[in-house]
């Protein structure tokens, strides 16, 4: 989107927001029923992420959203995705100059959790000892994000709309038709109990064109390169921005996908990091991430 387009869009959004009425007073809220329904909520374990630079954002978009494939090396067929996988993955090949600094887990509802058995998404961040943030230009880091995409499917991926923009039930015909259009996340994959890695990558190729159409300036100069390979016997996709960032997306098994992203690290170091991920029991994982607090 061009700067002119953004400016016009921002003006429209500002005008729409400016039509907002005054908020109801807090005292009025109390009279309506604030005191009703008070209840406890589980403590959410959030992590604070910094603003990413454009190139990293593009790379993450390309990889995580399954978008983009400009160059494919390795003509060998991908191995099948294992039947089961776990989001509780612990690295064993850790670069010497980074340490675990942040760890977080989310449950199926998208809430932060401290219970590994309830986690369907996990995230680990490794930083140099003196560094507090990551994602910014010139910052060195490794992150590991692992999602059980089937577990979060309904919340995160199955959003179907009728013509009137109402979300429709997952089991409706409308939603079913939309799901069937995706071989990656679709019904066949769910029935089989594992993601179709080839289809996911294929759909990623289609997405690449859309991304380039949307933000050609974001890709033209960055030299993004994509490679298929095998990580721990599983199909994987590597996305690299030359001399800058690398992400390794591995189809771990079932609906689980891990993404290891490294910035300002050698390619081989990041690949070894991804290769060294090992499944852990809930107890071991909890003990492991307990060291994350600095």
């Amino acid at each position, binding site marked *: 989107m*061009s700067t002119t*387009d953004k400016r*016009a*869009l*921002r*003006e*429209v*959004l*500002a*005008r*729409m*927001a*400016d*039509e*907002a*009425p*005054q*908020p*109801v007073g*807090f*005292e*009025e*809220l109390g009279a*309506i029923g*604030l*005191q*009703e*329904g*008070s*209840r*406890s*909520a*589980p*403590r*959410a374990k*959030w992590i604070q*992420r910094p*603003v990413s630079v454009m190139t990293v*954002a593009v790379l*993450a*978009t390309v990889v*995580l*959203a*399954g*978008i983009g494939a400009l160059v494919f090396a390795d003509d060998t067929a991908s191995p099948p995705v294992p039947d089961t996988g776990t989001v509780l993955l612990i690295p064993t090949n850790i670069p010497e100059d980074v340490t675990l600094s942040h760890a977080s887990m989310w449950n199926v509802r*998208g809430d932060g959790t401290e219970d590994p058995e309830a986690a369907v*998404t996990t995230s680990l961040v490794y930083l140099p000892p003196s560094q507090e943030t990551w994602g910014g230009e010139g910052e060195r880091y490794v992150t590991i994000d692992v*999602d059980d995409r089937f577990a979060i499917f309904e*919340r*995160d*991926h199955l*959003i179907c709309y009728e013509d*009137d*923009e*109402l*979300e429709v039930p997952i089991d409706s015909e409308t939603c079913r038709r939309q799901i069937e259009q995706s071989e990656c996340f679709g019904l066949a994959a769910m029935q089989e109990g594992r993601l179709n890695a080839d289809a996911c990558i294929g759909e990623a190729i289609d*997405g690449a064109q*859309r*991304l380039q159409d*949307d933000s050609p300036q974001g890709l033209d100069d960055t030299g993004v390169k994509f490679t298929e390979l095998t990580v721990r016997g599983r199909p994987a996709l590597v996305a690299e921005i030359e001399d800058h960032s690398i992400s390794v997306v591995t189809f771990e098994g079932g609906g689980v996908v891990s993404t290891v992203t490294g910035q300002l690290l050698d390619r081989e170091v990041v690949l070894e990091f991804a290769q060294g991920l090992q499944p852990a029991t809930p107890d071991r994982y909890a003990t492991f991430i307990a060291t994350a607090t600095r």
Partner: protein
Amino acid sequence: MGDVTHVEPDGQPTTRLAETYRRYSTDLVRFATVLVGPDDAADVVSSAMIRVLPRLESIQKPRAYLFQAVANEVRNLKRGEARRRQREAGMSPPDVVHMSEQYPEIRAAVEGLSVRQRAVVYLTYWEDLTVQSIAEHLGIGRGSVRRHLARARKNLRRALHEHN
């Protein structure tokens, strides 16, 4: 956290909750206005606040949590039959006002987006939030944010092209 910790002896909510509400309520109503229009925005925010304010003390990112609550309330509203009847009866806010604006075609395109697409566009282009932050504000995954944004951009492209 329970009722006792959030209600003063005279039955009034604590000052801390009031401060939190006052700090974010204007932004929340603006956000809701973009999603559902000015007529329903205040009610949406009020309903969302009644649901979630008592829990706020345990939340480390109250702003994101409150935006998420408003977004969820909008979804509930959209699902409501009353809303459906109103829409079918053509009682939606009139377009007349919009036509006098500088970018009527873009506004029409924004209003034509789904609620989630509109929310992602607003948080991206007005609030300047990151994908991760938007995911937290809406209670959805990062991939979902990117998908909604990509779809929204695609839907907006024609209007923006016509404008240019």
